C-alpha cells in the first residue's frame, strides 16, 4: 500500500511537467535571464482554462447531467465559501498578520488553482484513474465564493473603497476572466458534445495540452522562485500554514467527498481543489476589494509555497489518502 504510494509519488516527481517546474525554479533561483514573455504566459493560462472547461463539458454531456454534479457543485461552493472563515481564524491566531491581510490570504486558500487541477487530472490520467467531466465545472464554481467570504470577513472597514468601486469590484468578483472562460468553455463543451470534440480533440487534449502545461509550469517555476527570493516577510508560521493548511483542509475534503459518495477520481480531484490556493483570480480581486492587504504576504504563500507543495508532494499524497478512505 505505502510502497505503491511511494512509487506513484516517485513517478509523479519524474513527470515532464514537474521537472519543467523544477527547471524553472532553478533558473529563477539562479537569476538566469530565462523567461516566458508575459503575454505568452497569459495566453497559455487562457488555453489551459479553455481546454479544461471544454473537455469537462464534453464529458459531462456524455455522462449526462447527474445528481453527482449537483452534489459536487454544492460541496465545492460550500468549501470555497466556508474555508476562508476557518483559515482566517487560524491565520490570525497563529501567524500574527494584520486582519486585512489575513482576510485576503484566507480568500486565496478558499479559492482554487487551475494549474494544480490540471496537474492533478494529468496525474490521475497517468495512473489510469477515471474522473467526471463535471469536476471542471466545480473548479469554476469554486473560484469566486471565497472572495465573497473575504469581503464579509473584512466587513464594514472594507466597504468604504468597496462602495466607491463597487461596479468594478463586483464585475471582478463575479465576472473574473478565469471563471467566465472556464464556465463558458464548459457550457460550449456541454452543448457541442461529441460532435464538438471531434473537431477540437487534438487541440484541447493530448500532446498539445501536455506541452502547454510544461511551458506554463516552467514559467511558474521561474516566477515562484523570484517571488520567494523577494518575499520580505517570511515567518515560520506562514510557511507552516502554507503547507499544513492544504493537508488539513484536504483531509476535510476527502471525508466530505466520501460521505457524498464521490468516485475515487472525483474525490481526489475535489481534495486537490480544496487544498489548492488561487494565485491569479483572487489576487486581482483583492487589489480592488482589500487594497490594504499586503500582497507581499499572500502571493509568496500561495504561489511560491502552497503551489509547489501541492504539485510535487500534495497530489500523490492526496491520491493515496483518498484511496485509503474511499473504497
Amino acid at each position, binding site marked *: 500500500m505505502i510502497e505503491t504510494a511511494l512509487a506513484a509519488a516517485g513517478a509523479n516527481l519524474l513527470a515532464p511537467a514537474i521537472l519543467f517546474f523544477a527547471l524553472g525554479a532553478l533558473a529563477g533561483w539562479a537569476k538566469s535571464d530565462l523567461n516566458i514573455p508575459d503575454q505568452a504566459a497569459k495566453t497559455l493560462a487562457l488555453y489551459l482554462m479553455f481546454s479544461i472547461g471544454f473537455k469537462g463539458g464534453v464529458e459531462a454531456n456524455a455522462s449526462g447531467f447527474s445528481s453527482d454534479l449537483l452534489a459536487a457543485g454544492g460541496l465545492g461552493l460550500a468549501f470555497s465559501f466556508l474555508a476562508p472563515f476557518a483559515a482566517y481564524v487560524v491565520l490570525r491566531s497563529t501567524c500574527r498578520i494584520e486582519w486585512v491581510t489575513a482576510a485576503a490570504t484566507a480568500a486565496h486558500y478558499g479559492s482554487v488553482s487551475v494549474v494544480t487541477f490540471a496537474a492533478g487530472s494529468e496525474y490521475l490520467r497517468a495512473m489510469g484513474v477515471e474522473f467526471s467531466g463535471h469536476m471542471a465545472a466545480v473548479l469554476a464554481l469554486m473560484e469566486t465564493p471565497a472572495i465573497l467570504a473575504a469581503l464579509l470577513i473584512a466587513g464594514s472597514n472594507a466597504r468604504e473603497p468597496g462602495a466607491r468601486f463597487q461596479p468594478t469590484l463586483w464585475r*471582478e468578483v463575479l465576472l473574473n476572466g478565469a471563471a467566465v472562460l472556464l464556465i463558458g468553455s464548459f457550457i460550449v463543451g456541454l452543448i457541442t458534445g461529441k460532435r464538438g470534440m471531434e473537431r477540437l480533440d487534438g487541440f484541447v487534449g493530448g500532446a498539445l495540452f501536455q506541452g502547454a502545461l510544461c511551458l506554463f509550469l516552467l514559467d511558474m517555476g521561474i516566477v515562484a522562485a523570484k517571488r520567494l527570493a523577494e518575499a520580505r516577510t517570511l515567518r515560520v508560521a506562514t510557511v507552516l500554514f502554507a503547507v499544513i493548511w492544504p493537508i488539513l483542509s484536504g483531509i476535510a475534503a476527502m471525508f466530505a467527498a466520501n460521505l457524498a459518495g464521490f468516485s475515487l477520481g472525483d474525490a481526489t480531484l475535489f481534495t486537490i481543489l480544496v487544498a489548492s490556493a488561487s494565485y491569479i483570480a483572487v489576487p486581482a480581486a483583492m487589489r480592488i476589494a482589500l487594497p490594504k492587504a499586503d500582497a507581499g504576504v499572500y*502571493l509568496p504563500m500561495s504561489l511560491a509555497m502552497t503551489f509547489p507543495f501541492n504539485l510535487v508532494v500534495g497530489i500523490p499524497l492526496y491520491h493515496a489518502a483518498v484511496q485509503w478512505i474511499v473504497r
Partner: protein
Amino acid sequence: MQVVDRKKLDIFIESHALERVEEMLGRAGFKGWSVFEGVEGSGAHGAWRQTGIGESGACLVVTIGGDEASEKALEWLSDYFKTYPGVVSVSDVSVMRGERF
C-alpha cells in the same frame, strides 16, 4: 511656433482603476489622455513585475490639460490614493493649438 502653457499629469495607477480614472479625467475637463503599461516598478506598497501569473502591471496615464482640470483631477486622486496605491506628478508643458486642451 505659437505655444501656450498647460499642465501635464503623469498618473501611475494599477490597471483595475483605469476605467474610473479615465472617466474622472473626462469629467474634470481633460479632452484627451494616453495610457501606457509598465513592466515593473516599486513604491510604498512594494515591488511588482508584469509576469502573466498573479501579477498585473501598473499603468501610466499621461494627460495634458488646463489648470482647472488639473486641479480637479488632483483632488479626486488625492482621495483615491488614500485607499489605493499610486502616485501622480504635475509638470508645466507648452502645447500648440491650445484650444484643444
